[in-house]
Structures are given as C-alpha cells and as structure tokens.
C-alpha cells in the first residue's frame, strides 16, 4: 500500500481528465456528461449552485464513487485500473472536514505518515506542528476533534491534506466556514503550495473572491452539467444567463438605511 517514491516528496502535479461522466442516485441524474481536462500544476476552480453535483464530482475524481458511465483518468490512466490509486498521492479536504473523531488533532494530521510508516515519530511531530501553524492552529496537537469549531475542523483537515504532499489535491469548499482573514490565509496557502510543488489543485467553492483570486481556470456547473470552462475573464465574459446570474448575484436591502 506504500506509495511509489517512499519518503521522497513528489514535486510534480498530475493531469486529470474526466470523460463523459454520468451518475444518478435512485434514478435522479446528478452528473450528466461531465468532460474536464485539468493540466498538471493547474489551480482549477469549480463553481456552481448548491446541489449541482460538485461534491459528487470530486468524490468520483478521487475514486470514492463509481461512475454509471464514463471514466476518470489520472496521468492518462483510468483510476479503475489496478494500482493507479496507490501509485499517485492524492488528498481531499472534505466539505465537512471528515476528521477521525477518535483521534486527537495531531494524530489526525499525522495519520497518513504514521499509518504508512513513512517517517519516524519525531519527524512526524515536527511536520504536524509545522502544518498546524500554517493553518493558524499552532500548539493544538493534543486537542480532541470533538471540541473544535467547524472552521477549525476545516483547517485541521487542510493541514492533514498538506502533510500528504500530494500530486493532486481536492478541496471541497475550503473557505466556506472561515472568517475573511482566515479565508485569505487559506487562499494564499493553496496558491503557495501550488507554486512550491506544482500540485494540481481542484477547488470547489461558492466564494467568488476566492475563485477569481486563485484560479488558473474556472468551470461553472449547474444541474450536473458544465455550463462554461475558461479563465476568469472568459467566465466573466460568458453571456449565458445562468452564469451571469450566479456571478452577479448580490444582496440589495429593500429599505436602504442611507
């Protein structure tokens, strides 16, 4: 189960291709003919309304759901082929964090390294401390997961993904529960990590500022279909009414105070 490369840090992202992906749950189509091509080292942002199938798409990419039809290719190989998932380091930041409740924060963050025996305990402790301070949770190794707030869980989950030093990193709404300052920190870290190790990042987010700030390319998904894909300016220029409504939605107080 050990990844190829052992302790060596992989320094290159992988290409991800999604081909004709269809998925329905109990007869309801959730994904309809999704085609995507994410280049190695790209920051690819997926936006779309709630319930449009973004999380389900990410789960397909990392192999947690099996497509009804279509396929996912990682570095040109189908993820269904034997050994492909083990050969590539991948990590996912779940929308809910998905931390192991029976472990402490530190054990959660170091889990990948300790389970695969990649580093000694002291090395793991150093790495864990470093990643935790990166997400602003310095010194909280010994805390229980159950006593963390939602946003703290999310940040621990991000630290846990960073420890893996992955070639492909999937973020499911990394900033949805964070305050504006922490959102900026996380956005910076996504970009830094991308520059440092050329990891391929796929980020699902509703956060327009984050999306346009970090994305090399953006895809907009609605009702299980991809409406448009392109650079930030391409997407802004897209005349599709769904896209325009999603990007320009803003709250207007019916009785302005001033």
């Amino acid at each position, binding site marked *: 189960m050990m990844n190829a490369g052992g302790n060596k840090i992989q320094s290159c992202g992988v290409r991800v291709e999604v081909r004709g992906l269809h998925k329905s749950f109990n007869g309801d189509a959730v994904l309809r003919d999704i085609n995507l091509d994410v280049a190695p080292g790209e920051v690819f942002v997926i936006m779309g309304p709630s319930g449009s199938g973004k999380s389900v798409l990410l789960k397909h990419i990392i192999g947690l759901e099996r497509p009804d039809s279509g396929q996912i290719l990682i570095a040109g190989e189908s993820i269904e082929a034997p050994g492909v998932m083990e050969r590539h380091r991948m990590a996912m930041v779940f929308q809910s964090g998905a931390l192991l409740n029976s472990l402490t924060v530190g054990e959660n963050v170091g889990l990948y390294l300790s*389970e695969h025996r990649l580093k000694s305990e002291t090395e793991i402790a150093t790495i864990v401390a470093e990643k935790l301070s990166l997400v602003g949770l310095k010194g909280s190794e010994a805390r229980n997961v159950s006593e963390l707030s939602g946003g703290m869980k999310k940040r621990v989950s991000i630290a846990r993904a960073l420890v893996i030093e992955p070639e492909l990193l999937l973020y499911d709404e990394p900033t949805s529960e964070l305050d504006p300052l922490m959102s900026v920190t996380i956005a910076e870290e996504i970009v830094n990590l991308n520059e440092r190790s050329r990891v391929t990042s796929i980020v699902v987010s509703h956060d327009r500022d984050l999306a346009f700030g970090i994305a090399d390319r953006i895809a907009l998904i609605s009702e299980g279909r991809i409406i448009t894909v392109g650079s930030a300016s391409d997407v802004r220029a897209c005349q599709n009414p769904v896209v325009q409504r999603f990007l320009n939605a803003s709250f207007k107080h019916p009785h302005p105070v001033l």
Partner: protein
Amino acid sequence: MFQNIGEMIVLFWRTLQALPQSVRQRQKIFEQLFEIGNASLLMACILSVFIGGVIALQTGPVLAERGLASAIGGLVGLSVCKELGPVMMAVLIAGRIGSAMAAEIGSMRVYQEVDALKTMNINPIHYLVLPRILAISVALPVLVVFAVLVAWFGGALVSMLNHRIDVPLQTFFTNLREVVHLRDVVNGLVKSWVFANVIGLVSCHQGLQTIGGPRGIGRSVTKAVVNSIVMILILDYFLTRILMYFDK
C-alpha cells in the same frame, strides 16, 4: 439476508487476507482488547455466578429427591462449560461490544471518516475491521474461561447453601472433576471462538453498511445485535453436532 451473508463471507475473506497486517496494527488490537475487557469482565463474572447458581437450583432438588445429589457437580460443570458459558457470554458480548462496534464504524461511515481513510490509501479493513475481529476472537474465549470458573463456583455455592440440595463444596468439585474433562472445556472455547468471529463480522459489516444519518446508525446497531444473537443460537446447534464427532 442471503446477500448479507454473502457480503460477510467476502468481508471475512478480506480480513483473512489482511492478517499479515496484524503485527502493524497491534497497538489498535491492544486498545480494543482493553476496551472489551474493561467493559465486560465484571459484568460477565456477576452474570456467571447467577447462571451457575440457577442451574444448581433447578436441578439440585430433583437429583436430591432421587438420591443423586452427589452428581450435581458434573451436571453443572458440563452444562456451564459446554453450553451456557459460551452462549451466554456471546450474547452478552454481542449486546455490549457488537453494538459498540457497529455504532462506531457506522458513525465513521456516515460522517465520511471511512471515505477520508480511503483517500489516504488506508484500507478500512486493515484499520478498522481487522483489529476488532482479532481482539474479540481473543477476548471472548478468555472471558468464557473466567465465566465458567465463576459459574462453577456459583453452582457449588448454591448446592452447599440450599437446604434441599445440601451438597458440600468438596463433593461438588470431586464429582465435577470426575465428569468434566479438559476436552469439554476446549469444546466450549472452540464454540466461543466461532461466536466471537460471528459477532465481529456481523457488527463490522453492519457498521460499514450504514447509510443515512443517526437513524441509520441506530438501525445498524439493532441489526448487528439481533443478527449476531440469531446466528449464535442457530450456529450453536450445528457446532454442538459437529463437535460431537470429536468427543469419542
């Protein structure tokens, strides 16, 4: 039901394949062992005094009326070590530990912790199922040894104290040692080892099958306990039948 049994056989097979991993997972096996022992040793002992006691109470007066009171040691001894010890302890552990396993794995499933393990290339069978099944299959036979000893003692106590039976401790245990052989105890331990695997498998399987929220977890726990007990009682008959071949 049949689909469940099929899936459980697959799970058992995968767990067997994972056995070489058990050295790596020893820490977790010890944790589970400690939890099982901690949760059930005292309860098992208390329960066993009464199990031994009630057998003596039911049979003693009948034997005494026919002048056979001295045979009570063997009767209590055999029924406890071959039948009541293994079965009652298995039922107790199904309720106490099987339910906890199903609940824990079920909630990990529902809250995507199992998914998170998979994305980290950590096999849930190695990480969750193997340590639990190994721990329970060690713990239950050990627990049965304790239970049997305590139940014998309970039987002896009742035989001595109840004035309608009135058999001294000495006579009780002399007769017990004449009638009960080591192979009878081993017979009971084999049974309990099989029951332990059944409880572990059923509970882990139900846990991993959990869908939905807290209600799904509740459903899994109920099913784990009920299915374990049903399978234990049915298997008990067939195991008894099979083990008879080794008796002579």
